């Protein structure tokens, strides 16, 4: 079953100065903080999209989920929080949003976000060469498959071939290509489990 919906506590304070008196009400504001919601958005929207894309594999859903995370997270967010606090909060929100997506879409979790393990997605650096663990995760799985299984998955998912193109390329019928893809995916899932990926 799904994990209970986690209520993420937004970062709402910095480390307090504890020297007593009035100083105890002062807050240390690091230079590494967000001062407005726009900087939170601009600094994280691309990173968050990439993470969502890696978890759903298609642009429309990745965009919807990224938008939902910001709609949900920005309201309660207190500014002047450190970048690390804000990113952790965004990731916890993203985990909940993604879990809800799979519950609506397929009735069970398919992929998930681990706020600790996936922090790298929101950490520096960002941009077109931002972090993605997909090639790292797929290479050993594909390498462990029989040649025909590996080939059908490479053609379909890495080279974007239609099932007809796969059939032509592998010199098999379309129905055979479908069966081959189906079996290859299930074997790849077992391999991934064995490899712990």
């Amino acid at each position, binding site marked *: 079953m799904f994990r209970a919906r986690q209520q993420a506590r937004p970062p709402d304070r910095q480390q307090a100065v504890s020297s007593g008196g009035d100083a105890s009400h002062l807050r240390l504001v690091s230079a590494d903080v967000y001062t407005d919601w726009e900087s939170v958005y601009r600094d994280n929207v691309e990173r968050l999209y990439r993470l969502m894309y*890696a978890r759903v594999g*298609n642009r429309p859903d990745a965009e919807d989920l990224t938008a939902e995370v910001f709609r949900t997270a920005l309201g309660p967010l207190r500014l002047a929080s450190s970048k690390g606090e804000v990113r952790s909060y965004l990731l916890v929100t993203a985990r909940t949003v993604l879990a809800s997506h799979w519950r609506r879409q397929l009735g069970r979790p398919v992929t998930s976000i681990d706020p600790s393990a996936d922090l790298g997605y929101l950490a520096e650096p960002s941009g077109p060469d931002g972090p993605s663990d997909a090639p790292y995760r797929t290479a050993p799985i594909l390498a462990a498959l029989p040649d025909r299984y590996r080939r059908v998955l490479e053609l379909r998912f890495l080279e974007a071939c239609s099932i007809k193109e796969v059939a032509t390329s592998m010199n098999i019928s379309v129905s055979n290509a479908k069966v081959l893809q189906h079996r290859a995916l299930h074997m790849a899932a077992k391999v991934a489990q064995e490899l712990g990926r």
Partner: protein
Amino acid sequence: MSNRKLSAFIDALVSGRRPAKFAASPNDAEALRIAITLRAARPDDDAGPDEQFISNLYRELAGQQASRAAADVRLFKPRRAYVALGAVAAGLVLVAGTATVTDAINKPAVTASAVPVPGGQVMSTATFETVDHRVLGQIVAYNSHPSWVFMDVDVANYQGRIFCMLQAHNGSTLAMGAFDLHGGVGEFSKALHVDIGGLKGAELVSPTGSIVGSATFA
């Protein structure tokens, strides 16, 4: 058996479309997890966000932030003198605008200019326009302690809440607040602790985040 729906989901995934819902078995979920991981490993443009998506979401969130700001802050009750001054200034802008348009019949170029204001204080004015340059109204910003902004708009076929976002020269955006248009018509004024001279312009934004009109201070 959900093989057909699983195949349809995978077809959508491969072609970059939004996959359809179905009740997946545990085995399906395992296969889909691998399919998604493989799809995400493909080097293509979809892995990065579209610029249009980023800007559209920004506008939507700006509207959301403006709505929250309007709900959170104590509504400014402008003194009658301010409202009257604002209305007079907006009227002056309309007159100046009319004069400029009239002049434009005989002159090839139109130059926007701020209207001189009573009291010698710094006042900036601008005209809200649609993207196709239809005039929607006026905005007047008065630099003082506090500063204040007044606007008077008339948006055809618009009913309900509209948000005003102020844009600064440094690129930042300030959510000024929200107000209601009745029959497309509405006025709004608010005190602001900002330097009006730092403002570049303003935008009127619908609750869905689309820009209704924009104005650039002269």
